[in-house]
Structures are given as C-alpha cells and as structure tokens.
C-alpha cells in the first residue's frame, strides 16, 4: 500500500470527539426508557456514557478507508489462489477437514455476531459505543462473507461443505457453537458485550483465530490464511473494545462489579467449551502442527489472560474460577474430543482418522503426562481394528450436557479414568451436565437452559428426520434418515478419511498438476 497521507486539520482526539459526541439528542415527547427499553433490567448502572472511548479513536471515515484497503488485498489473493489451483498446495487432503469445520462451525457465528452487534448498538443510549458497535457489526458480516467466498473454492472440489448453513442449524455437534452464540444474543445488551466483546473476543479469540490462521499458513493454505489475517486485523480492534467495555462498566458503578464477575465466570467457561473443537483441530487435524493446544492455552490464556486479570484486580475482578479446572483438562481435552469424533465419523460432515506413528510421537512429546498413558493405547487399538476391516463407527447416541450441549465425554477433574456426570432436578425433570461449571450456569438461569434444543433429544423425539419419514417401518435406519435431514450423503461426506473421495481425488489431481498425463 502506498497511501497518500494528508495531514489532518484536527488531531486524532479532536476528530474522534467530533465524530462520536453530540450526535444524539434528548427526546422531548418520548420517554428515554421507552426508546432504550433494555437498559435497566440487567442491573447495570451507567451514569455517563461519554466516558466510553475507543482507544483506537477510529471514526467512520477512517474505518471505510482501511476496510476497503483490506478487502482489496484479500480479494487479490483469493483470485490468485483460485487461478493457481491453490487447493492442491495444502500439505495433504486431511487438512481440508479443518476448513469444513470452520465453514460449518465458525462462519455462521460471524453472521450471528453481526446481528448481535447491530442489536446492542441500537440498545445503548451512548453515541461512542453505538459507533463502535456499528463498526463491529459491519466487520462481522464482512467476515462471514469473505469466509464464504474464500472457502467456496474448496467447495468446488471437496465434500461436506455444500450446505454449511443448513448443517450449522441441524448437525449434532454444530449445536455446540450455535447454542453458544444463541445464548449470547438472547442475553441482555450488557451481558452480550461482556460475553462476546470481552470474554470471547478479548480472552479467547487468540485461541480461535491465531491457531486456525497460523495452521493455514503452516499447511500451505494461502486462501484461508489471508481471510484469517484480514478478519484478525478487525479482531484486534474488537479485543480492544472488549477490554474498554469492561473497564467502562466497572468504572461507572461499584454495584456493577459482582454482576460483571458472574458474566465473566460464565462466558469464559462457555467459550472454553466451544474451543474444544479448536483443541482437537490443532492436535489432530493439522497435518503440519503449529503448536499444541496445551501450549496455546499456556501462552494465550495463562500468560496473557493472567496479565489481564492482574490488571483488572484494581476493580475487584478476579480470574474466573473455572481456570483451575481448565488447567487440569489441558492434558486431556483434545484427545477426548478427537476420540469422540473418531467414534461418530458416520454422523459428521467431515472425515476423521487415527494419527500415524510420527504424529503419535509428536503427541507424546507435547503431552508427556497423558498421551502415552491414556490415549496412545486407544488410538493404536482403533488403528489395528481398522486395518483388520473393523473400523469402529459408534451409532449409539450420546447423552448431552444441557448447557454446553457437548456429549458427556469429559473426565473428572484430576481423574482421567472417570467420566464426569452432574445432574439437577428441576420442576420434576432431570438435567445432565458435563461439569460443575455447566451445572452452575444452569442453576443460575434454569428457565433459559431448560429450553435448549438438544440434538440427541430431538432425534429421539423424531424431529430430525426428513418430512414424511415413518420410523416404525421394518428395518428403519435412524442414522440414514438423520443424515438425509442434515443434507449429507452417507459414504461421501462422512466416514473415515482413508476411504474418502477427498483423499482419492486430491492424490489424482495433485498427480495431474505435477506430471504430463
């Protein structure tokens, strides 16, 4: 970029003040509480909205200018990638399954984030936060669109991505990220800002984007790397706003502190559970590894989050208690998650496989306290069985956690040999939880979480078959009917990578690209 920089007549601070202050007015014939009806019920007290300031001091005119520049860079690279069959340059075809996970699990959340920020921008009476929410709302829809554009090139050649949004709204494990964001946008505006702006964007986003994007860079995926970086440049602004939100709310009134603390505790845990998908992606799905989940957690949460919570201690905010349990889980999370997806490969929109010897050696070195003892025997056994023609596909539906909607696969903190079960009786019904933290979130707001759309319950109730299906006929295959409802083709979009069309095609096309045949 060779931008012409015209010296501005006003300094940055003055320009920001002019563009974000005095834009509103005091209504004369409507009551403030009728115009901003969501401002009081969460219990947060705001005395002076003008105390809110975007530390980047970005104004709309500058926003358009830099966003346009980002788009020009991005689309130039997407074109180059497509024109040069960039998809054949990735390390190996297993990598493409991370892209499938991303488009069906993450991109739809960008769109929901767009809606969420439009909504809260409207709900806040202060002009500063309204401008910030407007920018973030536009960023989020840009992310959804650019991700769809970048990944559409993979969809031309590989399976499982053809109806990603349909899948997002239906496929069992995709209810994990979906319900996370649905939970956030159905909360009040302040809770949404703490949930997404702070807990997700500030505390956890580095664990989502940096691993995916540097994973793409390590694995030769220029397309994904570029949209990732383009989105990430916006994320840096979102993170800054997330931190600003927290400081602003806490400084406005001491009564806000315990409310905010409860939200931070809740949303750090909720977000962490969603990142289970990222953990297994990093440790099992990237043919060329970047860093282990455990290392990423240590750098981006323990070190960086530690610094953050030390900084917030002056307001009386403490590190969420769940951090202790997460520290105990970091040796186990990705292995337990991948084991589950290996089991349920018949019901997913991507392929799974067992790690090879080199990959297991890498896992042993990164997880010296857990991999060889608990997980290597399991992976080895599955591999041997697959070699004998007994590739195991689990067709029994698992029990789900009522809060995070993840199957009850996690082990007791401190005892990786025992599955962790918690339950609560509420109005004559029994509810199940994967952990004390998910249980507590339910107990704080049972009326919200009893309404959860749990995929397994819905399948058993007959709500996940194509219209007109008769489950009572002789020889009815429930999984086949569910896959039809998901719009996934059994044998092509699911099952083991080894027998996949993706693997076969990739090898053939790469061969054509390097030989004269």
């Amino acid at each position: 970029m060779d931008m012409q920089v015209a010296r501005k007549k006003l300094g940055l601070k003055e320009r920001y003040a002019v563009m974000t202050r005095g834009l509103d007015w005091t209504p004369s014939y409507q009551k403030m509480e009728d115009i901003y009806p969501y401002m009081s019920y969460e219990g947060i007290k705001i005395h002076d909205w003008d105390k809110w300031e975007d530390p980047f001091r970005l104004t709309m005119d500058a926003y358009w200018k830099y966003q346009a520049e980002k788009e020009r860079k991005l689309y130039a690279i997407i074109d180059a990638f497509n024109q040069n069959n960039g998809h054949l340059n990735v390390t190996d075809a297993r990598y493409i399954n991370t892209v499938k996970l991303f488009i069906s699990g993450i991109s739809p959340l960008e769109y929901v984030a767009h809606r969420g920020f439009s909504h809260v921008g409207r709900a806040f009476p202060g002009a500063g936060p309204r401008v910030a929410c407007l920018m973030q709302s536009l960023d989020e829809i840009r992310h959804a669109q650019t991700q769809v554009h970048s990944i559409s090139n993979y969809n031309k050649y590989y399976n499982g991505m053809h109806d990603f949004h349909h899948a997002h709204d239906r496929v069992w494990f995709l209810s994990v990220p979906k319900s996370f964001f649905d939970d956030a946008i159905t909360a009040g505006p302040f809770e949404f800002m703490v949930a997404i702006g702070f807990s997700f964007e500030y505390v956890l986003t580095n664990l989502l984007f940096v691993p995916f994007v540097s994973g793409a860079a390590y694995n030769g995926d220029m397309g994904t790397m570029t949209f990732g970086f383009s989105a990430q440049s916006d994320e840096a602004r979102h993170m800054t706003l997330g931190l600003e939100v927290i400081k602003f709310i806490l400084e406005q009134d001491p009564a806000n502190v315990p409310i905010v603390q409860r939200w931070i505790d809740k949303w750090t845990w909720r977000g962490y559970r969603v990142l289970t998908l990222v953990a297994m992606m990093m440790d099992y799905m990237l043919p060329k590894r970047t860093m282990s989940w455990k290392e990423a957690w240590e750098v981006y949460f323990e070190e960086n989050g530690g610094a953050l919570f030390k900084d917030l201690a002056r307001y009386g905010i403490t590190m969420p208690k769940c951090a202790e349990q997460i520290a105990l889980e970091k040796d186990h999370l990705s292995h337990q998650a991948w084991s589950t997806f290996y089991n349920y490969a018949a019901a997913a929109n991507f392929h799974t496989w067992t790690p090879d010897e080199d990959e297991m050696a890498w896992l042993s070195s990164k997880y010296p306290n857990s991999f060889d003892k608990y997980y290597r025997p399991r992976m080895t056994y599955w591999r041997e069985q697959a070699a004998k023609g007994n590739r195991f596909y689990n067709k029994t539906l698992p029990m789900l956690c009522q809060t995070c909607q993840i199957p009850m696969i996690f082990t007791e903190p401190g005892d990786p040999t025992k599955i962790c079960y918690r339950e609560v009786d509420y109005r004559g019904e029994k509810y199940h939880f994967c952990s004390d933290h998910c249980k507590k979130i339910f107990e704080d707001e049972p009326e919200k979480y009893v309404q959860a759309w749990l995929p397994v319950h819905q399948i058993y109730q007959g709500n996940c078959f194509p219209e007109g299906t008769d489950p009572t006929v002789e020889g009815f295959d429930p999984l086949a009917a569910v896959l039809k409802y998901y719009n996934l083709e059994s044998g092509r979009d699911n099952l083991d990578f080894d027998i996949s069309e993706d693997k076969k095609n990739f090898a053939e096309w790469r061969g054509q690209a390097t030989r004269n045949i």
Partner: protein
Amino acid sequence: MSTVFIALQTNEETRQIVEAITQDNPQAVVHEQPAMVKIDAQGKLTIRRETIEALIGRDYDLQELQVNLITISGNLDQTDDEMVLYWNA
C-alpha cells in the same frame, strides 16, 4: 511486570515498522512465526509515527497499522504520534 504484545502480518509494509518498534523499545523481543511477527515487551510497548516515517521515507498515519494488524494485548492509547500498549499492574 506483565507482558504486552502486538502481532503483525509479515510483509513489505511491516518490515520497517518492526524495525521502528525494536529501535524505540529496547526491551522488545521479536518472534518471527510463519506469516506473522509477534513482538513481546515487558510492561509497555510504544510505536512512534516519526520513527516509522524516518525508516519508510514518507508520511505515515498510525491508523494504517490497522491493515496489517493481527492481534494485540494490553491497554491501548493511540494518538496522532504514538500507539502505546501497557498494563497497569
């Protein structure tokens, strides 16, 4: 003191920006990772417009950094002349 950081895309525009940052912040540690540069610093990191301008030989608006920014950590304060990342504790 806690560590603040900034990560930038590795490209021709950021090469001199990284150089400017290391000039102005002797405590900064540069980690070159695939496609990105992460710069850690104890307590505080200052990015100065004038240093960048001297290295790139043209006027520079610190907001241009938005285009190549990947992530940051710490409280931020940006003016026309400086972008500062810091922790209070």
